[in-house]
């Protein structure tokens, strides 16, 4: 579906907030814009440790887009840590790994959803629709 069609289907302004966790600047920019277009207010951080810290500071998000491979703290560790902290937000793993074992390890860390990079409007919408049904 095209972006314009996506916009007419969903109107999320003010309803959903998101956190982008990725060390790759290209992915950061793309995911940030994708979320903006859907009216989702979002923060961007560069690794798992920053994701944990932003939660420790009291901020909460409906959706977390978690990259797998990051320095300092990777997506698997960060996901486990956030779940241990009691964070129940929707965590969608985003990765360029296609090997099923690696994918499984990431999912078992506590993901609600998993998508391969690159994220598209369609993939993001399917993640977001899950949040809407959760709420």
């Amino acid at each position, binding site marked *: 579906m*095209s*972006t*314009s069609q996506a*916009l007419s289907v969903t109107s999320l302004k003010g309803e959903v907030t998101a956190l982008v966790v990725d060390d*790759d*600047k*290209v*992915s950061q*920019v*793309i995911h940030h*814009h*994708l979320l*903006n*277009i859907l009216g989702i207010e979002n923060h961007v951080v560069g690794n798992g440790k920053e994701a944990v810290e932003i939660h420790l500071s009291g901020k909460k998000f409906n959706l977390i887009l978690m990259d797998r*491979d990051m320095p300092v703290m990777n997506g698997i560790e960060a996901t486990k840590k956030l779940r241990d902290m009691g964070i129940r937000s929707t965590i969608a793993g985003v990765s*360029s790994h296609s090997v099923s074992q690696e994918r499984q390890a990431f999912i078992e860390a506590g993901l609600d959803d998993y998508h391969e*990079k*690159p994220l*598209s*409007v369609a993939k993001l919408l399917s993640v977001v629709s899950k949040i809407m049904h959760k709420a």
Partner: protein
Amino acid sequence: MRIQILEAQCSNATASKVRCVHSQSAAVYIRACLSLPMKMANGDLRQQLATMRQLLLDEELLDEQFIQLEELEAEGNPNFVEEVFSLYFRDSTKTLESVGQMLKKTPVEFDKVDRALHMLKGNSASVGANKVVNEVNQMRGLIEENSFESCNATYEQLKKEHDELKGKMEAYLQLLKQVEAAEKPRQGNDQGSASDTESS
């Protein structure tokens, strides 16, 4: 002189004329077009742009993800495509250089090489750099099979694909800027003012 021939070709652009032999020709061709703002109607420039874009897609240098990025730009994010590609090439060029350095060491630390390639794969897939992704996958496949001898040749091939894409994208984005600037509503008088920009 070559430029004059290209100038003549610019006014009757067809796909066959854009099908330049290699990236250097493409850059020369586009520079020739860019030096003719007063002679070419913007309609011709638009046609050049569309043809160039289609070629990038037809030759599979770019894939569907690139179209996604264009759609994101269309949704009110001016210069988004340019921004993303500029970020990408900044990172990808550095990564390729460091892989080159790693391959020169003895012994080669192939796990480090693979990590760098994994990052490059992710970046490249995010911008739709299809051929680059394929070359990265090939190289990673060789490393996995421990076919280290072929790695250097594959690295050279990867570099070649990357540099070709870089050259063509730079030319394309420059032309895109040109077309967009020309289509902006004019401010002030436009009585053939910029006479000294005519190329000789």
